[in-house]
């Protein structure tokens, strides 16, 4: 079914461009913190880049914990089919 047409995302170079784009946006979002006043509910929200770092750490934590859970929970696909 495959075709030979090359798509934009097929080029590794363009993949790299996308990743660099994400990094630039993240950096921009951190820099943006200097330009507005925070009205946070909790003290931690005043920490520099709190949401960014919290999101980053939590995301990696969720994936790695999920991966560990596989050791306990994963069974064959037809586990319930007798």
């Amino acid at each position, binding site marked *: 079914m*495959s075709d030979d047409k090359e798509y934009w995302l097929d080029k590794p170079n363009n993949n790299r461009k996308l990743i660099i784009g994400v990094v630039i946006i993240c950096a921009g979002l951190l820099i943006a913190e200097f330009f507005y006043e925070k009205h946070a509910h909790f003290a931690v929200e005043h920490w520099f880049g709190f949401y960014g770092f919290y999101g980053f750490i939590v995301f990696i934590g969720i994936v790695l914990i999920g991966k560990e859970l596989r050791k306990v929970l994963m069974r064959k696909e037809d586990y319930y089919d007798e």
Partner: protein
Amino acid sequence: MMNEYLFSPGLILIVGAVLVPILPLVLRRAYLLLLPVLAFWYILGLEPGDVQTIAFMGYHLEPLRVDKLALVWGYVFSLAAFLGVLFALHQDDPVQEISALVYAGSGISAVFAGDLISLFVFWELTAVSSVFLIWASRNEQAYRAGMRYLIIQIGSGVILLAGILFWFSDTGSLAFNAIGIETLAGKLIFLAFGIKCAFPLLHNWLQDSYPQATPTGTVILSAFTTKLAVYALARGYAGTEVLIYIGAVMTAFPILFAVIENNLRKVLAYSLNNQLGFMVVGIGIGTPLALDGTAAHAFSHILYKALLFMSMGAVLHRTGTAKASELGGLYKSMPFTATFCTIGAMSISAFPLFSGFISKSMILTAAAGDGHWVIWGVLVMASAGVMEHSGIKIPYFTFFAHDSGKRPKEAPLNMLLAMGITAFLCIFIGVFPEYLYAILPYPVDFVPYTTEHVITQLQLLMFSILAFIVLIKTKLYPDEIPSTNLDFDWLYRRLLPKFIRNAGTKISIADQHIREMFLLMVSRIMATTKRLNGMDGIVAKTSSIGSMASYAVGLLAIFLVLYFIT
């Protein structure tokens, strides 16, 4: 307004379904689209305060009671019914069509029920009608999953009925208003709502059954049952503190299962569970802002969740699979579906300018404003989790990632239309939240688009994407593996049957022993009786008159001897 001509709007779909089997295909398709439009139009004309009361066996029932809370659900349910029907329009399957109409109609009627008996009737009707969307897959697995679904759903209804009876005997009222968990009746009704709302440990019917339904059936299923439960909780248990903690657990634990699940429709079912958690937290907080947040989130959630299930349904329809391990690179031949799926993913992840952003933030702000910092922390964490499984995993592994080599045709036109309209609504609500805010139960004094809020939310989401890139590049991200992951349903699908089988074997052995002993006893009694009363038995012996006389003489002789001795 009290008007004898008013009736419950869901009846338009329920009664309307009667004609479906007799209409020819082309006419039927138009008719299927018309019914939800009529229901929507009729609900638009309803005003808070409208009621319909009927006397039934001496009780006053209110099949229609209109207020702002019910209206939010009425609008979005009829909208979802239309979109669901449109998405399924390429099919020619009257069973699914009738099922979808009756199910959607009973969902709509349930939210307009002013008394508990009407609620119970439509509550059970949603269960009975919807199971056909699962069975319509017409295979053994779907049949079994449907049976489990039906047992649990009907069970919820039976518990509800028990609660209603206690409630009526306690209070003498059947009106469906605030209930509270203080009384036994309140606890039973709470449990019934909790089952349908997929509370933790009561949740597995959802992940078990929804992925087994037809590609179009899951879209319909995702809209009604659980959101009806959210509505019922908001009406009966607003401000019940335990809901805050239940909701927080609901947002958190499904995200771990979603990470490792390979069946993408099951991932969406876990994600649905997680989204319900946000709404349940809002109900638990119970302030006007929190309840508005719950209603708004239910509204936007029904749309983006339907959109995500539609995109996976379209992929399943075209490729025959919804497993991440078998998909990838589909954007090349299904660009529209890929775009719509991405819009759904951005909505559920709550990107600014998408619907999830303007509704979820109300609940988070309400939680923070109430000082629940742990809960707030969990909800923000769960938001990153949503980004992981619904924001990235669903579109990435289906449409991008490694190329599976599959080049299916783009989805049928009706599917594209349904996805297009839903995607449009997701963006429209995100860009113009004031229209949604205007229909919420309480006046809204909330501004979603502040610089701080937009920046912090984008930080959370973009850094999550960055984390994903890091995990992929370092190859730490878990591979998609064809597998079954054990969840709580293991208890009733494996442990309990095994236990019952074991117990059954033991009981049958014991039973056999008892029977054997009994038979032995009976045969001994029989033998003894036979010995005594049988042909040659002492008791049954026939004797001659002569010998009888000699017996009598003998007895007399003994008597005389004894007489003289004493």
